[in-house]
């Protein structure tokens, strides 16, 4: 029983990382949003599995919120924004896909080396997932840096958040409930605000390409 739980948790954690790679690999905006939703779903299920095997009820709430907000509401919001401003469906990476994938792989190795000492000291059943979560955080950061469109930067940030969330789950079975709720609130507000900015950028510059944003410099 316990072993099956661990297998399931590990599998879901691997799925979260796999989707991070898919986010790097995909060339279509719509797919990108779908894959992000899938990642959030996997993360929510992971949280539910952790809640089930540890018996902490507050993780169920967190799991439900993750699925509701990150797998359903936020992808819907992003889709809306893309419909309204009619984003072209190409991702426009500034680093080509194969190189991006290789860099993401390198980041995963880096995450493994960073996380190794922490895994040794961790006592939770999910400690192994820490390396994967750090990898997801780094890949999210890489997506933000290497993709030009404003929306992809938002998605990169959300991927980072997902990675963090998994790190919190794997190290300490999540944070205290009040903190988790506050973090969710902040993320929602951040997405809404960035959505507004995406509109305004699109209206003002007539493009979403953030490489146009370089008037301010010394």
């Amino acid at each position, binding site marked *: 029983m316990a072993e099956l739980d661990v297998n399931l948790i590990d599998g879901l954690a691997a799925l979260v990382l796999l989707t991070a790679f898919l986010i790097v690999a995909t060339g279509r905006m719509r797919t990108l949003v779908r894959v992000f939703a899938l990642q959030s779903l996997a993360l929510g299920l992971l949280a539910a599995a952790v809640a089930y095997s540890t018996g902490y009820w507050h993780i169920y709430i967190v799991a439900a919120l993750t699925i509701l907000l990150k797998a359903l509401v936020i992808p819907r919001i992003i889709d809306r924004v893309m419909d309204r401003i009619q984003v072209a469906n190409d991702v426009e990476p500034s680093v080509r896909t194969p190189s991006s994938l290789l860099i993401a792989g390198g980041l995963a190795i880096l995450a493994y080396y960073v996380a190794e000492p*922490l895994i040794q000291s961790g006592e939770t059943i999910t400690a192994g997932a820490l390396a994967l979560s750090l990898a997801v955080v780094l890949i999210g950061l890489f997506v933000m840096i290497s993709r030009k469109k404003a929306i992809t930067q938002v998605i990169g940030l959300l991927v980072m958040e997902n990675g963090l969330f998994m790190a919190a789950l794997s190290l300490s079975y999540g944070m205290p409930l009040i*903190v988790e709720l506050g973090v969710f609130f902040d993320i929602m507000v951040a997405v809404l605000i960035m959505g507004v900015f995406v509109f305004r950028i699109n209206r*003002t510059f007539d493009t979403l390409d953030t490489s146009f944003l370089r008037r301010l410099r010394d």
Partner: protein
Amino acid sequence: MLELLLLIPVLTALVCLLLRDRRKVEWASSLGSVALLAASLLASYDVVTNGAKDEGTLYMDGLSAFMLMLVAIVSLATSLYSVGYMGRELQEGRFGAKRISYYYALLHAFVMTMVLVCLSDNLGVMWIAIEATTLASAFLVSFYNSESSLEAAWKYVIICSVGITLALLGTILLYASSIQQLGEGGGSLEWSSLLAMAGQLDPTLLRISFILVLVGYGTKVGLAPMHTWLPDAHSQAPTPISALLSGVLLNCAMYAILRYHMISSTSLGPGFSGGLLVLFGVLSMAIAAAFIILAKDFKRLLAYSSIEHMGVIALGFGIGGPLGIIGGLLQMLNHALTKSALFFGAGQVYARTKTRTIEEIRGLSKTMPITSTLWFAGFLAIVGCPPFGIFVSELVILMAGLQAGELLVISLYLVLLAIIFAVVLLRASRMVFGHPPKEQGRREGDLSAILLIVALLAGVLVLGLYLPQGLNDMLEGIARLFPGGG
């Protein structure tokens, strides 16, 4: 009681949002800020005389009281200044009439998030509050909705959110190490209890956690090399907001780092986190010095000067000891007051000249003698001329460094301060002296603005001449909170 401190700005923000009439909104905003300052004074007095107050998620000790006072003073000055400044911008049609209540509501929401940063006991809540400062101020930075202000706001939100994500990771690691001590489900993020058991926390986790937090919140502080959002946001935001960002927002983020610094140096000894603070401090000063030389826009010049001062503050706390900590705290206070005065002056100059380019401004002493004299006095104060307060606090940090025997750091510190001194005064005198480019009549800035600048500079001057006993006791009390600060 502590909830009241949060409630005042929230209510003010709501009232501002509901009122339509400009005069009424301005009154509401000013009264709200006065009320916040009064409440903060009362609460701080209480804390200084009766010791720290712990109310569940909210907590207030000497350090929180000090930060709270900073927030309250600068936000009062800002909201008073906004009345004249934003009023004129409105008349000039830079934004629609309806948006003025929106501006004040956001301003007070922003103040509320900063008050929450100072008062939260739970490090998780503190994280939420700091992210909320970014979110609340994002629309303030982009208030004019011009191309460049949008760009600044986008960079601000994205860079600070990324930074703060790393800080969350650091917070998670700290929580994990506390769980290891207290057992599953018993972990704590309340920094007061973390500090109490700091000795038993896992050192590896703590080290990584501090690095992440320093980089994460350091982004918000504007420590180099994570500072890139700062000059953009400061130069594009409405001037009162620049003052608020520079004067207190940066200090609030620094405050968060200090809390982790206290935990980390209790557990690992002061060398690790202090050393990192010194490193980032010197780096920030160096990069700020380089960009001050390059800066062409006077608001950007002021922004880089903020980076420099954050570097000085980080250096002071990093060196530590009673002198270093008191020097750092004084530097925070002096910088907040001086930089607000400078931004207020900058707003008046911009209103008169309609340009922010240093090269295009000449002979302010002819066109607006009083304002420009005050502005120049502000520049003298910011680079650390006696008899202003910054001279004293930088001197205290210098002494702390000499006492600690950090000769290399101190010599870098002096060289960088000297460079900045020369360049800033050179730029300032180009703008103030000489002949105006075309014949312009004499017209001063707003009377209210001049009075505010006089008040702020008078404060800095007093701090430079002597330290009031009450403040001195308070600072020494705060220094004792730090390990090695007694």
